[in-house]
């Protein structure tokens, strides 16, 4: 494959970032916005060409009928040793091609949307610069040829996320949210890094192709080494998964994501809903053949995912801030993908149901990106209209903002899994995979799906129906630049489910047909509809039921509303234990013990100097006496020693 297009796909956003970052402050808002959109538009077109060529070009179907993996280019960037080399390259396989589409689509939509949403904001140019940086990093991440390249871009997306969350840097909340996001993900990345170190120590390679094409070799290369009872491969994979947990906001490293909603809403749509947060899923998917080798690692993935999904759904039911609700929804949905990946394999190379879970996960990733971006952008339009994030400030908006209302409704239906919207198809596959793996997980995830439908429609009704509060300005639909993305994404959410995804993305790149498992599908739709009906009953207009339920289960409400007090726990650990319990004592220790020791050399010297002062008494007879004793001691001691 030509390497020009791939290079441009990465280079254009980077150039835009540098251009807008360095010269942006000299530009007008219009010019900067135009440049950003033009750059992203070009990238979009190039990515589509690349991805579509890959998916439909016959040259990429190998002799064995498998879709080939293509390393378009791979430049040595930093050679640690002969084998361990970080290369910067462009790797095309089904998931990276799919991610190219997802990223550039959402990113372009967000660019467009932001033109209206961010109009007149200070730092408009900076905003676009950061968006370009993020797009660059995310693209780089998905096309990584080796795990270290992924780590590099992994860090870069983290940084751009940090910068964008903290975009409103005058606000304390934004600053601390960005800090939190960075540090939590950084902590997770530490795990990732150590995982890489461990893995590369045994395999002596960073290269994905090398690792995934023959995963049993990876297992063999560890030579059965164990550490603290678990095999080193498990350690490595779990640690790498930790990185994914951080980025994808899995429990217990999820706490940064709700706070990240402090950033501009389009950013949330792009980064914290559609692209960056799925990096963890992507990572596991990328390493999937290796994970397959270690049942214990996938087990952990399933457990973490399942717990997170349920937890986030619970919490989402009790939030006030619509962006928070969406954030928890995102967490929950990503957990779905994780679970799906986890259930795709059944330990030691046996792929359950032809890797259905894998395909489902990727499918859900794709559809979720679209409809969640849609929801976020819709939420952005709402916030734009009423200048508040809380649904308490909203209500009855369907009259004022019809476009937003209808697109938002489509998004909700999609996420709730109502056919024929895209979410139904992908979620159905996931549930099917879960049931196949273990009925318990299937039921559990179905329950979460029901909760999803409930909290989404709770929000929907509270915002668009419910009682109308007093608005200072009459809310109205957003300008065209914001509506286009909404409409586009809504359209995609409507039709994306019909894409024959299995033809394009499967774990072993062997195309196969998706078929809907009717029992699972029907049951889940029924459950979802029931949940929606309940939500409608409770929230379409003033109704004592919610209050009653709250009163009936106060403890549960409190815990859900306060997100099960995770933030407080972290606060306790970081501030009380690490900051006050380690840092401060260490600083004290440094100043008083270590430095005190150094200073005490000086003090002791001074004291000694003071102590021997009487020697120089000024009395000549004492001088002579010391002289005499000195001489005699010299003789006497020597004599005792040598004679």
């Amino acid at each position: 494959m030509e390497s020009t297009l791939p290079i441009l796909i990465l280079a254009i956003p980077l150039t835009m970032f540098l251009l807008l970052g360095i010269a942006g402050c000299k530009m007008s808002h219009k010019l900067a916005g135009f440049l950003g959109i033009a750059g992203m538009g070009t990238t979009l077109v190039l990515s589509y060409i690349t991805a579509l060529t890959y998916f439909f070009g016959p040259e990429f179907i190998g002799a064995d009928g498998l879709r080939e993996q293509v390393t378009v280019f791979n430049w040595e960037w930093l050679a640690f040793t002969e084998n361990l080399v970080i290369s910067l390259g462009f790797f095309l396989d089904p998931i990276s091609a799919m991610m190219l589409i997802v990223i550039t689509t959402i990113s372009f939509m967000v660019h467009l949307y932001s033109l209206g949403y961010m109009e007149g904001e200070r730092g408009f140019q900076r905003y676009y610069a950061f968006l370009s940086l993020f797009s660059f990093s995310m693209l780089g991440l998905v096309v990584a040829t080796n795990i270290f390249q992924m780590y590099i871009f992994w860090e870069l997306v983290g940084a751009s996320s940090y910068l964008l969350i903290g975009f409103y840097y005058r606000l304390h909340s934004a600053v601390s949210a960005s800090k939190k996001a960075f540090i939590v993900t950084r902590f997770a990345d530490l795990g990732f890094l150590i995982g890489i170190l461990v893995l590369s120590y045994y395999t002596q390679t960073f290269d994905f192709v090398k690792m995934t094409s023959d995963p049993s070799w990876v297992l063999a290369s560890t030579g059965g080494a164990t550490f603290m009872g678990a095999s080193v491969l498990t350690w490595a994979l779990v640690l790498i998964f930790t990185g994914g947990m951080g980025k994808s906001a899995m429990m217990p490293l999820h706490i940064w994501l709700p706070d990240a909603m402090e950033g501009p809403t389009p950013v949330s749509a792009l980064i914290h809903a559609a692209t960056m947060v799925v990096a963890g899923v992507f990572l596991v998917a990328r390493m999937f053949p290796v994970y397959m080798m270690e049942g214990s690692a996938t087990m952990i993935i399933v457990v973490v995912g399942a717990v997170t999904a349920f937890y986030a759904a619970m919490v989402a039911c009790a939030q006030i801030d619509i962006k928070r609700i969406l954030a928890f929804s995102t967490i929950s949905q990503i957990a779905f993908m994780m679970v799906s990946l986890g259930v795709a394999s059944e330990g030691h190379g046996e792929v359950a149901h032809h890797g259905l879970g894998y395909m489902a996960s990727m499918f859900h990733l794709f559809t979720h990106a679209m409809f969640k971006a849609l929801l976020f952008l819709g939420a952005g339009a709402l916030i734009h209209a009423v200048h508040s994030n809380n649904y308490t400030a909203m209500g009855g908006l369907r009259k004022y903002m019809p476009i937003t209302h209808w697109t938002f409704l489509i998004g909700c239906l999609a996420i709730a899994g109502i056919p024929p919207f895209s979410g139904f198809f992908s979620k159905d596959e996931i549930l099917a995979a879960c049931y196949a793996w273990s009925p318990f997980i299937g039921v559990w995830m179905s329950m979460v799906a029901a909760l999803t439908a409930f909290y989404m429609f709770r929000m929907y009704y509270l915002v668009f129906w419910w009682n109308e509060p007093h608005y200072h300005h009459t809310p109205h639909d957003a300008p065209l630049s914001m509506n286009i993305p909404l409409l586009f994404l809504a359209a995609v959410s409507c039709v994306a489910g019909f894409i024959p995804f299995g033809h394009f993305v499967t774990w072993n790149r062997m195309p196969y047909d998706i078929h809907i498992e009717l029992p699972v599908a029907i049951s889940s739709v029924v459950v979802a509809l029931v949940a929606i009906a309940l939500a409608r009953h409770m929230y379409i207009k003033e109704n004592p039921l919610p209050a009653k339920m709250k009163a009936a289960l106060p403890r549960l409400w409190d815990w859900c509303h306060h997100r099960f007090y995770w933030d407080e726990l972290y606060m306790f650990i970081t501030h009380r234990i690490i900051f006050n319990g380690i840092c401060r004592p260490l600083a004290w220790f440094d100043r008083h013990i270590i430095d005190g020791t150094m200073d005490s050399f000086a003090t002791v010297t001074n004291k000694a100097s003071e102590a021997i002062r009487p020697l120089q008494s000024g009395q000549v007879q004492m001088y002579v006496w010391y002289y005499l004793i000195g001489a005699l001691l010299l003789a006497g001691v020597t004599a005792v020693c040598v004679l």
Partner: protein
Amino acid sequence: MFSNILIYFVVIPLVMLGGLALCQNIRQIRAVAVTGSLALIGLSAWVLAEYLELRGAGNEDPMLFVDSWTWFAPLNIHLAVGVDGISVAMLILSSIIVFAGSFASWEIKQAKEFFLWLILLSTGVFGFFISIDLFTMFMFYEVALIPMYLLIGVWGSGNKNYSAMKLTLMLMGGSAFLMLGLIGIYYHSAPEGGQLTWNILEIANNDAIDHSWQTFLFPMTFVGFGVLGAMFPFHTWSPDGHASAPTAVSMLHAGVLMKLGGYGCFRVAIYLMPQAAHELSWIFLILTGISVVYGAFCACVKTDLKYINAYSSVSHCGLVLFAILMLNETAMTGAIMQMLSHGLMTALFFALIGMIYGRTHTREITQMGGMMQIMPYLSVCYVIAGMASLGLPGLSGFVSEMTIFVGSFQHADMFHRVFTIAACCSIVITAVYILRVVGKLLFGPVYDEHHLSLTDATWWERLSTVTLIVSVAAIGCFPNFFNHLINFTFKPAIFAVLGLN
């Protein structure tokens, strides 16, 4: 003698000193400083080009441009010069920082004396890096140390008397051990009956220091240099010293002088006494491992910008020594990269802190806030420096740290690997303190209304910072160039002795 290109690294500063003596006013002083530092940058670029050309032509000598002029014939002391990739890298680093430092002290008071000492300091630094004779190396080393006292004492701030004295005495304390170690090496530099020598290459060739002496001399030299490299527990001069030092001095000191420590540890302690290094490395590994984590933890609770950065330096420099002790090619390459990286970014940090301090007259982060609105340029630079420090890819910190971690983790011994993981933890703590400062200092609402009237960077400040940022980014973006420049040194047989790598 003057046909050797390296000698000009000492000659130019000396000429600058002479020029400075003739200067009448501030403009001339600036002219001398700028011309001189430009000449040094040019010279180091030239050396780099020549070096690469020679290497490209297949020159496999451990050192290039080697030359030696007898100085004290009876003791076989020579003025011996020579560079390998490491020294070239260090020379480039030094010249860049001297350049940036000159601009950062554009409006210093008593400029003549200031630059006099500053240039004397850089003479020492350059001389140290080009020397391959232990005696001249040590001499230049001490030449570089003593101007610090006056620079901090006269132009410093805060508790400057105490800090200057502490810094000088502790560093000289280190060099006391060092001197003993060096003379000891000299006396065991040749096999029985052979000609004793101070020349590093010859000593390494002779490989005559017997085992028991190595175990005595290695700690001496390692601790001697380690003090300057801010090795725990001998790092305490660093926070106080940096906090009190004027901007350019902090830059030079953290940026270059602390590198002397790491460089010396490698060039003398490990290069000449590999067996002892191998056997005793665990002791120092523990100490430096502590430095790495401990410095970072301490930085988390400090509120004085310079203290934070000083502790951060302890942590980062600890990583340098840590990696050197791993005794394998990758980790040691990483150590040198980390020296470059830390030198540049910490110089950038100190330059920025100095500039902010020069405006607000406080370094307490609790007394400041919202600088991004007041001085966007400096703030952006600070963020970049912070990002470099916490290891953002594309900037130098990432490259060096990763090289170190990957390299260290390649160590065959489990103990070393576990320790590497412990050291890795520092990247999280680093993020904590960097972001804490960035969040408090640059973001958020403006803390003090008086600060609103402050101005952003002047052109010379911009020049100074841009130079450093570009350098940081250059290393971060094109690491393989530096990697190849450096790791040539680590190829040859010194590891063969250890059966490592």
